[in-house]
């Protein structure tokens, strides 16, 4: 990061406190994901049946579940798994989507048509249903949640990169680069991609939130992560049985964790858009 970009970032964050808070939140989440298991007050897996279903108190900040496990500890420990699933899925689809999309956008022609057809087929499924089906077919494992989430995200990245490259393909500076002796490949890699990546970074941030919701939804319906592992979606699913009897904390706290995480990434994405837009720089 050059000093100008850094200064600009500081300037933007100062003028946009919401983004600053979101960035701080995302940072804390990442720290929790790394050191979480070593700082929590209780063992997230060991059951303690005499203390089952305690409401939140000074001892158990977020109450205990039906096996007497501390909900707060489980929440903190779950951050790693939830973030890891979302981050790896988004990285996968981003990397593939950016390259495939840019090539389609620049070259066009037959490649573009074939990829377009493939994307059409993927997009013809309701995406959550597609993810469900893929996990069902590939096997009920965490890796497959990542793969399924990556695949349902892929069409967006392909289309996005394709559209962004396509509008710039005939820009004067692209033709100028060719007049200056760049080959088509070099134009795509050295000129178009760097111009498209910032916009895609925004997309990544917004997408992370969506991927987290998606993975949590899959585990809520019983796919992917399985029972004793702390994971926000499963925690909600387990708490759902007790909601009709008023044990709200089992659902509310994992729900809040999901919501705040997604909110952080969404707000960060909106903020990134401003930071990375060179036209906004003074």
């Amino acid at each position, binding site marked *: 990061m050059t000093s100008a970009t850094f200064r600009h970032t500081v300037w933007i964050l100062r003028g946009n406190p919401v983004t600053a808070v979101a960035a701080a939140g995302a940072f804390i989440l990442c720290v929790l994901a790394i050191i979480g298991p070593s700082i929590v007050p209780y063992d997230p897996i060991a059951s303690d049946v005499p203390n089952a279903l305690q409401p939140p108190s000074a001892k158990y900040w977020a109450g205990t579940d039906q096996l007497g496990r501390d909900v707060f500890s489980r929440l903190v420990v779950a951050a790693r798994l939830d973030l890891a699933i979302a981050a790896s899925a988004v990285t996968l689809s981003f990397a593939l989507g950016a390259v495939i999309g840019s090539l389609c956008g620049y070259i066009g022609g037959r490649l573009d048509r074939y990829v377009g057809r493939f994307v059409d087929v993927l997009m013809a499924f309701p995406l959550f249903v597609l993810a469900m089906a893929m996990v069902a077919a590939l096997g009920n494992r965490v890796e497959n949640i990542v793969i399924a989430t990556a695949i349902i995200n892929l069409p967006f990245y392909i289309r996005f990169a394709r559209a962004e490259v396509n509008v710039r393909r005939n*820009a*004067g*500076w692209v*033709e*100028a*680069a*060719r*007049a*200056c*002796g*760049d*080959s*088509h490949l070099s134009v795509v890699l050295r*000129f178009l991609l*760097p*111009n498209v990546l910032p916009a895609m970074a925004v997309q990544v941030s917004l997408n992370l939130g969506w991927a987290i919701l998606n993975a949590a939804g899959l585990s809520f319906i019983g796919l992917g992560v399985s029972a004793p592992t702390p994971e926000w979606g499963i925690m909600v699913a387990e708490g759902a049985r007790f909601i009709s009897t008023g044990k709200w904390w089992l659902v509310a706290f994992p729900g809040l964790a999901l919501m705040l995480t997604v909110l952080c990434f969404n707000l960060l994405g909106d903020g990134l858009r401003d930071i990375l837009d*060179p*036209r906004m*720089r003074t």
Partner: protein
Amino acid sequence: MNAFASPGETPLLAIDDLHVTFSTRRGLVEAVCGVSLQVAAGETLGIVGESGSGKSVTAFAVTRLLDASGRIAAGKVRFKGQDITSASSKQLRSLHGAAISMIFQNPRGALNPIRTVALQIADAVGAHERISASEGRARALDLLKAVLIRDPEKRLDAYPHELSGGMCQRIMIAMAIASRPALLIADEPTTGLDVTTQKTVMDLLARITAERGMAMILITHDLGLAARYCDRVAVMQHGKVVEEAEPRSLFRAPRHDYTKRLVAASPTATSKIADLAPSSLREGASDEAIQEGGANPSGLLRSARNDGEVKPAPGTPLLLEVQSLVKRYDGGVVAVNDVSFAIRQGESLGLVGESGSGKSTISRLVCRLIDASEGEILFDGQPIGQQAARDFHKSPLRKDIQIVFQDPTDSLNPRFNAFDCIAHPLRRLLAMKDGAALSERVRECAARAGLPAELLERFPHQLSGGQKARVGIARAIACRPRLLVLDEPTAALDVSVQAVILQLLDSLRREDGMALLFVSHDLNVVRMMCDRTVVLQNGAIVEQGESLALFRAPQAPYTRQLLDAVLHLDGPGQRDAVVAGS
């Protein structure tokens, strides 16, 4: 203040010490600072100025149609004695359309894209009187006839996207006159239209205002347009009116320095490159030129000294030969149809045509950025059309053919600073490595293009339009090309900036002995810049020949039509002639 309104009579519109401010991220900016103007009934007032002069803001302030960020800070605007600046929204609504109406730049965008022409015109009529749907349609038809649209019945149910830009502007005019306003404000009504369309639209406006006794305020950057169609012209700069006079005296004997520069910078049918910024005025060359620090590039003085013809001798060998070039796009559109021409070494050839004439396609074909469907391109006797455009970057001739693009903003990579933009061809085509030699060469190119060295660190969005154009030129001349293709290099620039850029290009050509392929829609510019001219229409050549001869005695009817549409700054009683002639 106004010498033209008869004393004692209330003018139709009186603007008195108008101030308009905009709140921006950098605080309040005053866009109009103390403008006073008057318009009498039936009179046509021109407001002329370059971008940022506040001319359009004045118009929008008069009609209270400023953006949310704009505010009338002080001053009065009176229409028939009634103060508009303090009018309620209800009063404004009855004023809009019925008393004052406007037509805008970009007519297609000004019309609702998903509503038929008939309904939109009926809306305009219905805004001020109760009419039934069938009456509305009948009135729409009458108005379409009034603006001389061909097949008016057919156009009633058309949507704006089905009509040409000129037709959309006529429909806009029909809507503007629907409720018989006393004043019509036309904000750059023909910018973006072809010259021949411009003429018909402007003639129509002049005729309609004359027939209906309407006053008009014509806002334009084009002095020729103001000279031809206005009774009186006010020149604006930096939000102030610097001079106001009858067009003939204004353009023949401008008094204010800015007006003098503006008049000089506007190419006319007789002006020479050196006239665009005469030496007496060069000290205070246009403001943007001063801002961009290129006020006195070495080239300017040289071009003034070296004023003679630089036509290459008849025996000079051909540099570029284009033979029966054809370019077809997918879907069978023929953009270029059997075009042949040649350029001698050091010669300058103009390519003239309206939009859709194929001139930009030809410039890209010659530059080997796209492949021709048929035909051959010879450079220095070598057939360069054989090598696919995809692989032409490997050709040793790549550095000999360079191009300057139309839109300076669009032609610079937003993530490269000026230095990297100029260094790019040097690194690529001359394989120069980073170091003292490279930065020396970049600095030299920048200096030759009149770009101060301290701007080299800046990114495109930090540069003005003229500065960006200079970066584009510096990049194109960096490898000392033998042929420079200029694709409307000044179309996006103000006239005063255009003047310095044209002089720069001309002097670079003299110094380096480059050949130029100059693509433009502006006949006056081509006549000044080019030894020979090719006139294009619909992808085919209509006429070609020596520029002077071609413009003096055009053979093809189309060339004559183009020349007729060219505007002149000095003609006797032009507006009356237009009105009487129609």
